[in-house]
């Protein structure tokens, strides 16, 4: 068994972080493999099929940002700074112990950050097309996914067979269905739970080793929620205003935005960031002749603001507003995220046309604007 070194400042870490490091260290020392990823476009089935655990490394905390700013410009999205900061400060066990990191050419900030991240930890970047529109876009993405597959086969000295890919696709599909069931519970009036609970479950689920464990954690939440419902639990006030939360990935603002909405007379009934229904409802065609292509096709269908044009996202949100009987749309834009910030105009236009109140919030992971954010959110909910 190989022994791995802990970060230099390990002794200064608080106990929970120490425990996290020791857990991941043990996993890797016992032959477990770990890859870090950042984005919904990452074709996860490849890692499952290779027998490698894949964990989300999206930075969601303000903690390492000041250190990240020693290298990165201040005027950059907090998610990018935080992600880089965790690698730079060696404070995230998953980033620290993973074999390599996989990224995509999504927004400019992330794409360029990966170049610097690569100096700390090997970073493999998939070249994501900027649009799904051209005939050859799918082919580009297929070739990229295939290259990654070959890269891993060589790195780990294994063969990623179609059979393994098919099995992985099946498992991921089943997990997506569980997620969809979990989301659907919010369709009830009043919704089955506070969405901040769902957000936390999803965020924690990302840190399980392997899809089975991750799926089990979601299933446990789903079963618990269903049981509570069957027992007549009504954790949400009937009069709470039904909010759809869209925009940038929201895990880093569960407290600042999510909880604030739910503590001020609102409840999030639809999570419309890229971890939500828009992305999870798409399944891989498990029975396709060419399973690798079926996987790459499924991922390229994701509607994210990094694509041009990206009508699918707004069209989907419109559908969600009806499905979840939404009273108001709140768009959360992380500071300096140009793609979502610009696309917000289209989102607002759609809401105006549909007569749904809309508000955009620009924020970061710090607490400096918490008071103001609370006033805005509370006032918006009072207005509904």
């Amino acid at each position, binding site marked *: 068994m190989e022994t791995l070194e802990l970060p230099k400042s390990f002794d200064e870490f608080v106990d929970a972080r120490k425990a996290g490091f020791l857990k991941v260290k043990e996993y890797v020392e016992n032959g477990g493999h770990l890859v870090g990823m950042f984005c919904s476009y990452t074709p996860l089935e490849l890692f499952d099929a290779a027998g490698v655990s894949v964990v989300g490394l999206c930075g969601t905390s303000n903690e390492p940002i000041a250190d990240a700013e020693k290298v990165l410009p201040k005027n950059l999205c907090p998610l990018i700074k935080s992600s880089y900061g965790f690698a730079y400060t060696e404070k995230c066990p998953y980033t620290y112990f993973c074999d390599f990191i996989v990224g995509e050419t999504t927004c400019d900030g992330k794409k360029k950050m990966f170049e610097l991240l690569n100096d700390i930890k090997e970073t493999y970047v998939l070249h994501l097309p900027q649009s799904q529109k051209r005939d050859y876009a799918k082919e580009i993405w297929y070739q990229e996914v295939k290259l990654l597959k070959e890269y891993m086969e060589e790195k780990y000295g294994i063969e990623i067979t179609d059979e393994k890919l098919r099995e992985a696709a099946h498992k991921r599909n089943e997990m997506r269905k569980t997620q969809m069931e979990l989301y659907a519970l919010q369709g009830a009036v009043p919704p089955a739970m506070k969405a901040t609970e769902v957000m936390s479950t999803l965020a924690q689920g990302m840190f399980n080793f392997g899809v089975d464990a991750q799926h089990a954690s979601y299933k446990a939440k789903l079963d618990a929620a269903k049981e509570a419902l069957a027992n007549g639990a009504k954790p949400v006030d009937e009069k709470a205003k039904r909010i759809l939360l869209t925009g940038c990935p929201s895990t880093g603002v569960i407290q600042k935005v999510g909880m604030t909405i739910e503590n001020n007379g609102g409840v999030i009934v639809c999570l419309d960031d890229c971890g939500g229904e828009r992305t999870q409802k798409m399944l891989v065609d498990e029975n396709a002749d060419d399973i690798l292509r079926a996987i790459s096709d499924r991922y390229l269908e994701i509607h994210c603001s990094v694509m041009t044009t990206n009508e699918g996202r707004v069209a989907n949100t419109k559908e969600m507003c009806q499905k979840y009987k939404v009273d108001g749309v709140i768009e959360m834009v992380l500071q300096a995220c140009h793609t979502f910030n610009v696309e917000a105009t289209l989102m607002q236009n759609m809401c105006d046309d549909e007569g749904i109140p809309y508000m955009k919030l620009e924020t970061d992971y710090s607490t400096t*604007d918490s008071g103001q954010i609370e006033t805005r959110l509370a*006032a918006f909910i009072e207005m509904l």
Partner: protein
Amino acid sequence: MYQVGIDIGSSAAKTAVIKDNEVIKTILLDTGFSSRKVADTIYAALEAEGITRENASYVATGYGRISVPYADNVVTEITCHGKGSHFLFGENGTVIDIGGQDTKGISLKNGRIMKFVMNDKCSAGTGKFLEVMTNRLGVTPEELSALAQNGNEITISSMCTVFAESEVISLIGKETPREDIAFGVIESVVNKVVSLLAQVPNDKYFLTGGLCEDNYIIERLSKALNAPVTTTPLARYAGAIGAALAC
């Protein structure tokens, strides 16, 4: 029954008492260091006039709204400014509230808030900006407006209060007339407010908050917006009045 609205802002604490749909009393105090303390002072002042928990209900708003222990309810200042302005002006239009640390634009239609905007974290275009500049120039807000009236056009280009302050310092160093600097300072606030209001355009505007008795600022705002800006002395209490109405 008395309806008491208490609006604790970052610099001033405003109170309005309504009875039978009429504002019968207002109180204006400095917020000072403790919202809690000023809330107690307000309670005592009202109690001295026979307005107590027995015969009144209280709604708190503003940035210190959570520090009013005897409030029956808390409502955000945006909703309150909307309600209060509808009470005072009774027309459709956009409310401009230039507060100590926030500036807000609230578009009203038939007494309902249709949309609102608020300045970002930064203090450009707020009372704070004016406060920093009046301190730097050693004048009161009224004197600043009086000076500006006789000033020539100069531009203070920094949006950030800290940078704008150094810009003012260097203007003072260059012996630029104080009138001109005052002009530049007020224009800077007006421009920032107007650009915020672009998201809630209207053909009529109402000014609330601490600047509602400053005719010069009203005139400059109206010119920049190319639309009438009206106000009343009670508009300083719009938030408190709205809170009282929410009782």
